[in-house]
């Protein structure tokens, strides 16, 4: 598996898009820091961008890479290599290089700005960790979609729809249900609903770590009580891990049964 990972990783590191992605974050980091002049504020702005952009890039890169490396995969399948190694290696190559672009692209400007002397270091690390999780989750989901769809256009469409659903539509439905059922106590419902969407989960996790949760009202207080504690943090991280492991597991499972 490590060899496949190595080749996929090098392949991606050499490709133009990894640099574009890396440079984008580098530029974003510098611009935000110099406009805001405040690490904490920059973290909030970054969060809003990362929460939407990272899943989108993960989804699109995942689908594109899977379909583009189809020939490579077929070549590998005839070699004495385990099937699960081929797919896991490719997946980790994509997710790894995207995570690296994210962490380095944002890390460099913040470190240069003096992150280690500021007290926002925990918030910033949390931002990078959730960013990495979101990359892993959405790349795994998109690999799953691509594996189940021979037709590229369909696969691409489903992947983008999935992103759209989790990033936008889910929130809409969530809000509507809150309005429709406003007569009832909704705190546990909203907690659960947040857990079932990795994007919402990441957003809430970061927001509540920053000291702006006072703006969120009663439900915010419930959330703060939950996410603000270490226990909440651990449970959220477990949920994100589960969100990562389940698609990877399905990927391995499905790849064993597929005909090429």
């Amino acid at each position: 598996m490590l060899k496949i990972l190595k080749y996929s990783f090098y392949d991606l590191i050499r490709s133009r898009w990894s640099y574009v992605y890396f440079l984008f974050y580098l530029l974003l980091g510098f611009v935000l820091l110099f406009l805001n002049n405040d690490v904490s504020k920059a973290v909030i702005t970054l969060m809003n961008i990362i929460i939407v952009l990272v899943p989108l890039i993960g989804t699109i890169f995942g689908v594109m890479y899977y379909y583009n490396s189809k020939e490579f995969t077929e070549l590998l399948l005839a070699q004495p290599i385990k099937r699960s190694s081929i797919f896991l290696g490719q997946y980790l190559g994509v997710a790894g290089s995207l995570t690296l672009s994210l962490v380095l692209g944002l890390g460099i400007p913040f470190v240069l700005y003096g992150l280690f002397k500021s007290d926002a270091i925990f918030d910033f690390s949390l931002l990078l960790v959730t960013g990495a999780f979101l990359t892993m989750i959405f790349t795994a989901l998109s690999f799953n979609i691509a594996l189940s769809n021979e037709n590229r256009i369909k696969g691409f469409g489903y992947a983008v729809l999935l992103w759209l659903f989790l990033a936008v539509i889910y929130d809409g439905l969530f809000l509507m249900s809150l309005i429709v059922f406003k007569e009832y106590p909704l705190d546990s419902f909203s907690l659960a609903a947040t857990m079932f969407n990795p994007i919402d989960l990441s957003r809430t996790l970061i927001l509540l770590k920053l000291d702006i949760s006072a703006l969120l009202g009663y439900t915010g207080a419930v959330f703060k009580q939950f996410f603000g504690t270490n226990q909440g943090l651990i449970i959220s991280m477990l949920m994100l891990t589960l969100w990562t492991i389940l698609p990877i597991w399905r990927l391995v499972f499905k790849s064993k049964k597929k005909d090429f």
Partner: protein
Amino acid sequence: MIQVEDLYKKFGKNEVLKGLDLNIDKGGIFAVLGPNGSGKTTLIKSILGMVVPNKGSIAVSGISIKKNWKYRHEIDYLPQIANFPGNLKVKELIRMIKDLRQMPSEEERLIELFQLEPFLNKKLATLSGGTKQKVNIVLAFMFDCPLLILDEPTTGLDPASLIHLKALIQQEKNRGKTILITSHIMHFVAEVADEIIYLLEGKIYFKGTIEQLKTKTNQTDFEHAISAIASTPTDA
């Protein structure tokens, strides 16, 4: 070498293999023939483990291939359409496959034979179909495996390379290897094959030498014998 028993495979509603039995226990060149869609590639891909059969068993060198991947160390495979990752150079591709297989290889001789030196530093996406096929052949022949599977090896080759290819196949046969070939070029098959395996409707319809085939169909010409075989009542 290869034992296939009662192999069934369907893609959706399309039943491709319907209880195929095949036993190859000695070296030599076996041509897998049959009309389009008769299951040749599916059979080959099943042996390679790329297609998962619905029913039946396959063993290579006496080892069942189910949930096993190490047996592919015994197989060299030449795919039908040479599809390679386009952004790799020829040299890098060869190095990568060597690295993945970790076996002694003799690619220099083959590169020289097919005059591929000028292309070594070119990206695979820029190569012509015939050159790609040559690279494909180098990759398939550079290791020393007891089983060699060639799916349409002649596609796109110029006459000189075709002669080299035939010589290579003979060489490998003389080393005692088992070679499975599919091809639609009957002259090529008649020239190289020791035995014919004729697939029809997902089963083996005929297995034997070219002479046996001619007697069976009362034809003197191999190409006519092949096209006549499907209409001959079977008694084998």
